[in-house]
């Protein structure tokens, strides 16, 4: 019926993974797409340059919310370098759907939140 609203996407939208917040977060970052009002906030717990735990909360379309759910699963236990190396096409592959340029922005909001959070964490380390 629909090309992009596959069961798994809608399921993740309704039952997000790693939802909530981390009280002990090493860093947290809110990414926002002013074009559609989508937002994703990620909390990362980082030890020895590795993501030990992650939580996310957001408000937006099914694509943006499904994408961050899958990403949180993906990055858990990964090093910061490995997460920084995740490319947009890998996110699209994770979702398993074809996206128009406009909707691609929705899919990549979570990745932006993760990358920005790590950037912020590194900057904080440097300034300490």
């Amino acid at each position, binding site marked *: *019926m*629909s*090309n*992009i*609203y596959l069961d798994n996407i*809608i399921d993740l*939208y*309704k039952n997000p993974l790693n939802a909530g917040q981390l009280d002990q977060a090493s860093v947290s970052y809110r990414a926002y797409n*002013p*074009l*559609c*009002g*989508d*937002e994703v906030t990620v909390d990362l717990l980082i030890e020895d340059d590795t993501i030990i735990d992650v939580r996310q909360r957001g*408000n*937006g*379309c*099914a*694509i943006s919310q499904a994408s961050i759910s899958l990403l949180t699963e993906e990055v858990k236990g990964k090093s910061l370098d490995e997460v920084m190396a995740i490319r947009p096409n890998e996110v699209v592959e994770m979702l398993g759907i074809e996206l128009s340029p406009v*909707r691609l922005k*929705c899919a990549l909001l979570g990745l932006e939140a993760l990358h920005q959070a790590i950037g912020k964490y590194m900057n904080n380390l440097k300034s300490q």
Partner: protein
Amino acid sequence: MIDLHNIRKDFPILESGQLAYLDSSNTSLTPLQVTQAMDAYYHQYNANIHRAVYPIAERATEEYENAREKLRAFIGAESVQELVFTRNATEAINLVARTWGTKNLGEGDLVVLSIMEHHSNIVPWQMLQVEKKFQIHFVSLTEEGRLDMSDLKKVLESGRVKLVALSHKSNVLGVENPVQTIVQLAHEVGAKVLLDGSQAVPHLPVDVREIGSDFYAFTGHKMCGPTGIGVLYAKRKLLEAMPPFLGGGEMIRTVETSGSTWNDLPYKFEAGTQNIAGAIGLGAAVDYLQRLDMKNIQKYEQQLLQLALQKLQQVKGLRIFGPLDTKERGAAVSFELKGIHPHDLATILGERGVCVRAGHHCAMPLMKHLQVPATTRMSLYFYNTEEEIDRLIRGIEEARRLFS
């Protein structure tokens, strides 16, 4: 009477029957008569205006000025000197802010806008505010989503209001503001009025002299015209006293190394080679709308709107923002559907050929007021059908099933 069968033949994009185009508040579809008029300019008398003296250049000038005259008559302005061609309504409002605003606004003054304004009638004033240090008051809305007239009256009593700048009709809520009353109230305290008529001129008969507005801006592409052409109407006395907006060719009378003098109205505000084909196309759009008769268009849209409001309200979990009746309300309806983000809904509808807008509609302050990140909006024009509304409703129901 609106003869749908024949009207729809004028819009080649509708020929396949695949599209249910319900996004005319965003941009309207373009009839053949408009593109043909623009083709004629490029293919038959492609020349610059107000310059050369050979026959096709004279014809180009004549057709361009004919278009201005058509627009003058369409909105009931007194003289063609009061009509300035711009790129769009945004440019028209920026023109007023940068010329009249720069000259007349300063510290201690108040500019009155409303929460329902499009960004095009917020940002130019905020940009000028940085330099000129005046204050901006945003008139609030009633529960129903109409302009809160008591708030407007209260702020006018302050005696500090220099300008009231409002949309004639909201692009999100569809509400039509009581512009004539607003102009009277503003003039009583010596304030000028600018109206953004982009959502009004395409859908109802507009008479700027009856309204009494000092400035009236609107765009061409929402009224069957091409993109890239809009109009600023302003009272002659104001235009005469305003400094030029952009400098360049055509807007001058004389240029010497020691300085320049300005051309007559409206050319003082039309620097550089204009969008000639665009103006001619907009003139053809006016002919087209006038042949249908704005009263007929308005009446037909009201019928369709009533049906749409009725059917949308029957959808479970759907909430409409703005008035639920057709009184003083145009055919743009914003709504939310429980559990489905507007972008997802618009994508699903799009897959079924139903074109609606999802997002903040360039009205972020209004989204904040409604406490939503975005809405879905369907908007109607005279070429829409009852069947297209049914397709919208069917699409919404399918989206609900998909997300249930």
